[in-house]
C-alpha cells in the first residue's frame, strides 16, 4: 500500500532524512520510534505534504500513485491522514463546519456525492460516540481553547470521520495523561481494519502498550537503523536508545 524508497529530505538545505525505505501493507500497524531530532516528525510531515521540505531523492507511493507530486489536499483525498502532534487552533471557524467541509472536500475529490446536513450529523454523532468526545466541542472554534486531550481526541474524531487508507499519528501520545491516552488508543483500535494501515510516530513505548504494533522501526540520524517486531519496542524501553549506539540529542 505504502512504499517509501530511498527518501531523502532537507529543510533549508540541511538534510534530515537520509534514505528511508519502508513498506506498509493494508491492515498493518507500524511504529516509528527514535530519539528527538531523528527525523520522525519530518517523515510524517513529508508524507502529508507540508511546505518547506525539499525531497532531494527517493519516492513515496501510496496505492501505486506518487505522493510527492500531490498537494496536501490531494493526498487527503487519496486516503492519507496525519494526526498532528500539535493540532492547530483555527479561531472563528466552527469545528463542526470545518469537519463537514473536510469530509465533503474529500468526497468531492473522490467523485462521491457530498453529504447533506442530516447525513453529516448522523456520521458525526456516530463517530463522536466512538471517540467519546464531548459534542459541545463541535460548536466551538477548531481546537481553540481545547485542552491537550481534547485536541488529540479531535484529531481522532477527524480520522474516524474521514476513514483514511493510511493514518499517520505524529506523537499523538505526547502531553496526554493515562486516561486520555487510553481513549485515543481505543479510538485507533476501533478503526483498525484489514484495509487500513497506521504509522505511529512516537518517542516512548507507552502508546504501544495500548496499540499493539505489527512492526517497529527505529529511526536515527535520518535512517531506519533497526526494524523488528513489537518486542523491539520493549527492548528499547528497557535498554534505551544508547543500546543501539544512538546518542540522544537534547530536545
Amino acid at each position, binding site marked *: 500500500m505504502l512504499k517509501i524508497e530511498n527518501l531523502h529530505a532537507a529543510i533549508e538545505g540541511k538534510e534530515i532524512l537520509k534514505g528511508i525505505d519502508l513498506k506498509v501493507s493494508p491492515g498493518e500497524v507500524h511504529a516509528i520510534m527514535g530519539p528527538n531530532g531523528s527525523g520522525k516528525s519530518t517523515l510524517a510531515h513529508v508524507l*502529508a*505534504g*507540508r*511546505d*518547506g521540505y525539499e525531497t532531494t531523492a527517493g519516492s513515496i507511493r501510496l496505492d501505486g500513485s506518487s505522493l510527492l507530486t500531490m*498537494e*496536501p*489536499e490531494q*493526498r*487527503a*483525498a487519496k486516503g492519507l*491522514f*496525519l494526526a*498532528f502532534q500539535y*493540532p*492547530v487552533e*483555527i*479561531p*472563528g*471557524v466552527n469545528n463542526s463546519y*470545518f469537519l463537514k*467541509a*473536510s*469530509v465533503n*472536500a*474529500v468526497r468531492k*475529490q473522490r467523485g462521491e456525492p457530498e453529504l447533506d446536513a442530516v447525513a453529516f450529523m448522523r456520521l458525526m454523532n456516530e463517530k463522536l460516540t466512538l471517540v467519546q468526545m464531548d459534542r459541545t466541542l463541535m460548536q466551538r*472554534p477548531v481546537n481553540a481553547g481545547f485542552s491537550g486531550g481534547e485536541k488529540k481526541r479531535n484529531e481522532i474524531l*477527524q480520522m474516524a470521520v*474521514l476513514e483514511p487508507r493510511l493514518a499517520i499519528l505524529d506523537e499523538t501520545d505526547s502531553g496526554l495523561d493515562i486516561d486520555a491516552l487510553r481513549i485515543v488508543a481505543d479510538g485507533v483500535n476501533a478503526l483498525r481494519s484489514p484495509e487500513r494501515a497506521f504509522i505511529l510516530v512516537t518517542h516512548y513505548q507507552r502508546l504501544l502498550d495500548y496499540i499493539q504494533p505489527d512492526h517497529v522501526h527505529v529511526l536515527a540520524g535520518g535512517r531506519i537503523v533497526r526494524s523488528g517486531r513489537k518486542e523491539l519496542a520493549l527492548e528499547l524501553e528497557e535498554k534505551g536508545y544508547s543500546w543501539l549506539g544512538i546518542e540522544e540529542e537534547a530536545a
Partner: protein
Amino acid sequence: MNPALKPVDTLDTWLLGSSERLTRGDPPWLARERACARERLREELVPGPREEGWRYTNLRALLEQRFRPALGVIREATGALEEGKLQAHLVPGLDAWCVVLVNGCFVPELSRLEGLPAGVKVTSLRQLLLEDPELVERCLNGVAGLGAHVFAALNTAGLHDGFLFHVAERTHLEKPLELIQVSLGADEPHLIQPRHLVRLEAGARATLIERYLSPEPSLYCTNNLMEVDLGEGSYMEHHRLQEESPNAFHLSGLYVRQSGHSGYRGSNLALGAAWSRTDIRVAFEGFGGDCKIDGLYLAGDAQLVDFHLDVEHRVPGCASRQHFKGLLTGKGRAVLDGRIHVAKQAQQTDAHLKNANLLLSRDAEVDTKPQLEIHADDVKCSHGASVGQIEPEQLFYLRSRGISIEAAQRMLCQGFAGEIIDRIEPEALRSYAYGKLSAALDRKIPAE
C-alpha cells in the same frame, strides 16, 4: 471611463446646471445653508494627496468623473423595482420596518411603515420640508457642523431628499428599521446624495439597519450624510452594510452626538464599491456615554476602502471601543485612520481602538494609522494595529484535511471576520452578512 478627462477643480462642477431643480420651493433658511455650502465648494479646491486625511486615498479616479445629480429617474426606476427587482436584495427572514430610497429619493410605494408605534416618525426629508421645515432647520448640520471635509458641503449644497427618523422620549422600537438605498444606473453617472437625520429622545431605543446596494454594476457616486443625535439615556444599534456596485464610488459621512448615559453600538461592513470612503465622527457631550463601533472591510483588485474614525471625548466618564478588521486580496487597498481625542476635562475616559488586517497577497496594501490625543491624566486608553498574513500552519492543517488551498483561505478569512460579524443582531441580518461575505470571498479567492 475616459482617461483623457481632467479631474474637476472644484466639486461645484458636479452641481452646475441643477441649481434650480434642487432649490425649488426651499424655505429661505435652506437657501442660505445651500448658498453657504456652494460658496465653500467654489472656494475650496478638492483635497489633494498632501492633505493628511487624503494621503493614502487617491481621489483622482473620482474627480475624473462628470457626475450629474440624480433627480429625475425615479418614476421608471421605481417601476422596475416594483416588478420584483428589489426582492432579490432583501434580507431573508428579517422582520423590520423598511424605508426604500432610490437614487437618494424616498419612495413611499416601496417602503413598509405600517404599524409604527406612536412616537416614532419616519418620513421623507422632502415631505418634511413642506410639513415641518422648522424641525429640519433645527436638525440640519446640528451634529455634522461643517463636516469632516468638503464632501459634506457637497451633500448640503445638493440636498434633495433623504429621511428623518425620530423616536420620542422613552419610546422603544421593538423591530429594527431598515433603510435600503438603491442606486439605479442611467445614461450618465449619477451623484446620489441622500441626507438623513436621526434623533432619539431621552430614554428612546431603536435599531437602524442601513444598506447600500445596486442591482446593476453601474457607475455612480453615493455621497450620503447621516446625523445621529442621541438624547439622555437613549440607545441605538446601527448596522451598516455597504454592498454598492463594483464600479461605484461611495462616500459616507456619519456624525453621532451622544448625550449623557446614551449608548451607540454600530457595525460597518464594507464589501462593495470600487472606491469608498467612510467618515465616522462621534462626540460625547454628557457623562456616562458609551460607544462601540465595529467594522469589517474587504478589498480586492481595483478596490480601495477607507475608514476615517474620529471619537471626541469632550466630557468625563465616557467609554468608546472601536474594532475594525480588514481582509485584502489581490491588489486591494485599505486605509484605516482612527483618532481618539480626549479633552483635558474628560477624566475617567475609557477609549480603545483596535485594527487588524489580513493580507492575502503581496500586492495588497493597507495603511493603518491609529492615533491617541490625550489631554486628561486619569484615563484608560489604548490603540493597536496589526497587519498579518495567513498562518502557514493553519493553511496546512486545513489542506491536510482535504480542503483546497482556496477554500482553506476563504475559511480562514471567514474565521478572521467572524469576530465582527458575530456581533451583528438580529440573527437574520447576521446570516445575511455571512452570506454576503462568503459570496465576496468566493469572487476574490476563486477556486482554481
